[in-house]
């Protein structure tokens, strides 16, 4: 049962990551354009997405059980992405926030700006956790035995 849940969550987190990245990219690029800022400066916001995507791809290709079969990690990833997606939904759709009327745009940058910092922090920690899970999955004892 846990194995099936893990397989579902592994695929789900991959899809959710891509969706989160696409929408965050759209919002942040528009935000920088509106402020007449150099769009190149916004790249720091996307680094954790790219890193996490690379790590997920490695996990997937190398079939790393230590990561793919870690229920807590998969749930945490999905929870973080659910939070980002909810924030994205509210950025576009929540018409009860005054800033969306005052700014006159269809995107509530004011609200999303509050989300960027925690989003980046959480994605970086997920990257670190992924790497640590990979290290945890390496069987050092076999290598020591082979070395002897």
């Amino acid at each position: 049962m846990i194995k099936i849940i893990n397989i579902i969550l592994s695929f789900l987190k991959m899809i959710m990551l891509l969706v989160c990245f696409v929408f965050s990219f759209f919002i942040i690029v528009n935000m920088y354009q509106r402020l007449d800022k150099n769009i190149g400066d916004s790249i720091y916001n996307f680094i954790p997405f790219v890193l996490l995507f690379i790590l997920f791809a490695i996990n997937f290709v190398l079939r790393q059980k230590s990561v793919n079969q870690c229920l807590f990690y998969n749930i945490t990833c999905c929870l973080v992405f659910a939070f980002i997606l909810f924030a994205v939904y509210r950025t576009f759709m929540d018409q009860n926030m005054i800033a969306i009327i005052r700014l006159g745009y269809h995107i509530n940058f004011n609200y999303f700006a509050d989300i960027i910092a925690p989003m980046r922090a959480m994605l970086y920690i997920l990257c670190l956790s992924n790497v640590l899970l990979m290290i945890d999955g390496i069987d050092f004892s076999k290598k020591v035995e082979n070395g002897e």
Partner: protein
Amino acid sequence: MDFFKQYIKIMNYALMGLVFGFAFFYLLSNAYHYLEIRKDFYADDNTQLLFNKINEKMDHITQNISKFNSTTYSGNLSSNRMLAIQSNLQTCVQKFNNETIQSIQDMKKISIIDVYRLRESYENDIFNDCIVYNLHWTTTVTKENFNSSYLIQNQPLIQLYIESLRTETSYLKKDLINNSSYFYNTSAASFIKHNTKDGFYEVMSSYNKAASFVEYISDWFAGEVEGIYD
């Protein structure tokens, strides 16, 4: 090596636990905030009573204004001055019957956006267009430029009243503009009140106070026409 791996595992689960906690907190906090700003307020008899009160005051002001006739007037002030004041008061009555308040008066369900629009209309139509542009002269009358002892004697009171009208809804404005931030529902002031309902009554009380002020000036105007302050 085992000790090292165990240590990494502990660190890793601690990190994941931290992210899990934060994500959960942010998700719940946002969900709460989403519901909080969606709370509508359903208009009841008390709401209609407030609108009626203001409308009654407007009717009274209109009656007071209509008492003036430049051909029969023989009071302390010049006819031109009285005509200008009459025009000021007429403009105020028009501003009180603005589109926003008319539309909200007919609404059964009032949202936070309506409260924001009502507050904006209070600031633009009532405070700026009526009080500042048309009735600000009441704060600058002196013995030299205005021959009415009643207004001169009551000037400190009028100044205080106008100052209170200016600042009364500024706190609400800050609160409403900041409703895009999820810090909004962590502030104690926002937590203990129904933002839409209390915000609505706050703006309406300012509307009512402003209407009372215009009524007060119109009463003086009617008195001046009838020769009460001679």
